[in-house]
């Protein structure tokens, strides 16, 4: 099986979202567009894993991309560890065993190396929680809004739930019932898109849909 040859027609909201990704987070734009196409192609086996990967990555990385436009962002564990690894000696070279014991109670390392490790541990300890990162994400999404309001915690929780649903499906696990998820996928993905679009899409595109709901509700 291969991806459908049929071109997928993006909705107006999706076009606006895609344009926004291209402008504000270009590295995520293709992934998003690919996910849109996968969601639309219900014949592609295992598509849920691919879409789930994309949603999880967008959810996790978007805040860093948006934040990096403002300042440096998350702790770069790999880079820091590479630097430490260059200087880190084998442990047996650090200290000799005390008499009568198999391993030393203390060892000594260079101050510079210790400082680097301390810095890495501090950064790790101070890293934001997922909820803080999500809050930060929505603050970034509202940066260009004229109103100075804060985002409601309900939205942050809802976004986290959506992200977790996809994260759970990013890798194959026995307990997940894929056939049921396949049906749920478009709705979950629409929710993910809906939350993002409400913040970064055209305001009046959103109100058109809301007007339709209000029309029905107020009937």
């Amino acid at each position, binding site marked *: 099986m291969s991806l459908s040859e049929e071109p997928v027609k993006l909705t107006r909201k999706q076009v606006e979202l895609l344009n926004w990704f291209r402008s504000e987070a270009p590295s995520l734009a293709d992934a998003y567009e690919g996910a849109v196409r996968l969601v639309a192609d219900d014949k592609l086996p295992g598509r849920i894993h691919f879409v789930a990967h994309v949603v999880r990555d967008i959810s996790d990385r978007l805040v860093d991309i948006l934040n990096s436009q403002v300042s440096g962002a998350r702790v770069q564990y790999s880079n820091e560890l590479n630097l430490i690894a260059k200087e880190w000696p084998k442990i047996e070279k650090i200290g000799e065993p005390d008499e009568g014991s198999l391993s030393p109670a203390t060892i000594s390392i260079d101050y510079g190396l210790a400082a680097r490790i301390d810095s890495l541990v501090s950064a790790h300890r101070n890293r934001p929680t997922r909820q803080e990162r999500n809050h930060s994400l929505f603050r970034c999404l*509202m940066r*260009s*809004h*004229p*109103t100075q*309001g*804060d*985002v*409601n*915690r*309900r*939205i942050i*929780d*809802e976004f986290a739930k959506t992200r977790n649903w996809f994260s759970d499906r990013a890798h194959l696990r026995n307990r997940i019932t894929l056939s049921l998820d396949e049906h749920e996928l478009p*709705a979950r993905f*629409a*929710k993910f*898109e*809906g*939350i993002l*679009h*409400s*913040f970064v899409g*055209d*305001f*009046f595109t*959103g*109100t058109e*849909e*809301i007007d339709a*709901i*209000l029309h*029905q*509700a*107020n*009937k």
Partner: protein
Amino acid sequence: MQSFTKPTNKELNAALPLLSSPEHEAYFFSRLKNPLWITPLNECDIFKYPPTAEPVKGGGIRYPSWPPTKYLARMAGLAPCEVASILSGIETDNASIVGDLLDAAMAMPEDVAASLVPMVSNAANEGTLYIHFKDASDLCVRLAEGGQADSALQLACTLFSPTFDEGKKELHGRDLYWYKDGLARVVSVLATRKSNEFLKQLCDWLRTIVEAKNSVGRETSFDLSYIWRPAIEEHEQNHDHDLAGVMVGYVRQGFELAIHGGQINFEHAKSILDAYPYLVFKRIRLHLINEFAEQVPALAREHMLDRRLFDNDEYKHEYAMLVGKRLSMLEAEQREVWYGWVDTGPDMTNYDDMIRRNYDREATDSEREGRKNRWKYEKLHCVRSHLDGDRLKFYQQMLADHGEPELADLNVYCGSIRRGNESPIEVKTLAAMTFEQAVARVTSWQPDESQPIGPDIEGLASTFGQYIATNPILYSKSARALIEKPAIYIRHFVRQMAVSAKVGGAIDLSSVFALCQWVLTRPLNERTTPEQKHEGLVDKDWQWTRDEVSTFVESICKAKQDDKPYYPLEGVRVPLWGLVEQLCRDRSRSNIVRDLSKEDPRVLDYLDLAINSPRGKALEAGLEYARWVANHIKQVDQASHEIVPNGFDAMPEVREMLEWQIAVGNRSFEAMAIIGSRIWLLNWIDQAWLHKNSEFLFRLHGIEKDPQEVHGWAAWNAFLVWVSPHIEFYRIFRSQFAYACEQAGKTTPGRDSDRQPMNRLGEHLMILYGRGQLSLDDDNGLIRRFINTANSSVRRHTIGFVGQSIKGDDKVPEEVTERFQDLWELYWNGPGKEDLQEKPGAWLYGTWFSSGKFPDQWALDKLYDYVEVTPTPEPDHSIAERLAEIGHVDILKAIKIVDRMIRSDSEGWRIHGWNDHARLLLGQAMDAGGEARSIAKALINYLGRYGYHEFGRLLKANH
């Protein structure tokens, strides 16, 4: 009622993601009318996280409004139980949410609203109710009226229990106005619906407030209430600024309502009041005995015949009210007992001691008798409607002799008093006399003694002036009758002569001149009325009268008929100048006290000081005299110009006076400022003289050598501020203009105004430049140098002045606008951007642009550059209006300008003033397509998020 349907899960799931941003949430909830959405939305935690109060930078707290609770408030009438259930579970420190809660409670049936009382009480205790105190009071009243008295009482206790911060007399956490307003309404309903509990509560609150007063003795129950609440009933002598006094009114009202309504009887009321020790509660009880005497006649009689109450001034008012209204309830013999107390008279034991102590002398029999009669009179005044026979005669006689006794039933009395300007003689009395008699009557009057109130000389002099004004022409003939009379009366007389002269009244000038001449012969410091402690504005010497003579001279010279001088030269000129000559060397120091030693003379306009100084007034008179003479002798030359033949040779007396004033040693700020402000006149009379004396008159350089040498600046600044710009002046004062321009960069004007001399310097230059009389390069680029080096505040004023002037001009020739375009380029490419950054709200280019006098594309280009520096150009409304008119010339640029203006509006209210113009421009940009359309579309969406939803129509119209 409308029939709604509950949302399906599908509808709900579709809706919720759309409401994620606060703006969409607000859009949805402000329009949702279906109460059946409440529960499903609640199950989705929509109402779970209301926004909290936010501290604001620089102090203060912001209470964000929240559309979901506003929706609940709107739905409260349709689904009260659901709404109450949700709201009662919300914990918030946000006053806006509390306001929604109160709105909801007011829309619910009372029994449901009662369930919200704990939350309102909690908000009150947390201090978040402050701005909704009135709404909470309304709810309290509504609950009480709606059969929820227990809840109402619970709420009332939270709202109205008075608390005070340590050492403070003001209520803690409550606005006094709304506290009093709310309690007044609550008392009127709760007193009859929960009488016993509420009245006890009211008494508790009164006790708390009384005990917060410093003057209260807790052991003695002494509270001075007869001072802070003179009468228990409503009375003009009660003051509403004293909270305890106000609370007494509520307590009284509460008891009266409850007893009248039959909820409690008098005995019950008495038992409540008796539990409180302070005097004020006893006074309230006495008041109620009077009010309900028919219910407790024995008690009323007992109190009337209580000699301790009769003698005790602490109960003076309530006792007086009781006997005044209820004396007839006493048996005849009981009344005689009471009258017997009055007839016996007061206790005089300490009277003689008191006189000795206070006046250091023995009391006389007459004083003792007077004291007794006064005391009796006050006692009888209380029962005046019951009097007959001799007591009535005695009372009526005392009333006729002394008027109503203000302290018969009060210990203190506050009333207004008249201060000053009271005349012992009326105008009509004087008018019935001959002038000489009137003068004699007025000038012979002396106040009995020095008093702060009552008739005084100032008041009498004012009345004398009014009398003169009734027929100034007639009285002018008798002016000599005032010779040798006090200055204050002559001053008022001369003032009326000046008023009459100014309108061409045929006053007898020779008589008035004679009086004025006599005035000028008097020693300046001569005192003409006896000195008194409280004498008000009475002349201490002759200066004010001399000033009035100056005004009189000026009035004569200004009087005109058919645009010609009213008074002839012949017979008037000589005596008139005779007066001026003697006045022009009067004191130069102004009556306005101002320390000039620390002010920069280069940026001061001295004219206000000058016109308030004796010499300044005299000089004004002298120069008006010069104009008057010139108007008499002027001729029209071949070029149709009016000229004054022979200039100052035709009035050498004026020249001599001017040269004396500007001579070193005689100079004063005041005189120089008057002369500077009349340069136009001097130039007209004798330009050669002005040429010759200009360097000396406007000696500006002197300040560098001697900081005290600044008189030239007084003249120069008055010239700049008060004389219209003209190239002729520029030519005469070329070197002064150059020097002043140089100084414009070395000074800091104190305040920005049209009367700031350096600002006016810029205006002079701009007008000459605009007229083409002075180019950018003339005189070594004087204007260029001014633009580049003047103080930034002066520059901004100058540039702003051009825009405003052009805007106000109907037709501006093309060559003028071209000149100003060059000037703008010079300014903008020079210091303009920095000037603007320094004060982004300045009206600089905004007025140029909105004038509509410049080529459209040029104007747009410059505005585009301008908003790059400040995105908030002023005046924004005029700019937007003009943009809408010419935006089509370059719609992309225009929409970019608007985009910047709107996005920089952090408050979101500026566009309110010009959203019609913005809509027009956005529509044009949408029609234009391309980049302009993209920008417009994004901006429309941005405005939508701001709450300007009406702009969304532009998108629909342009699909």
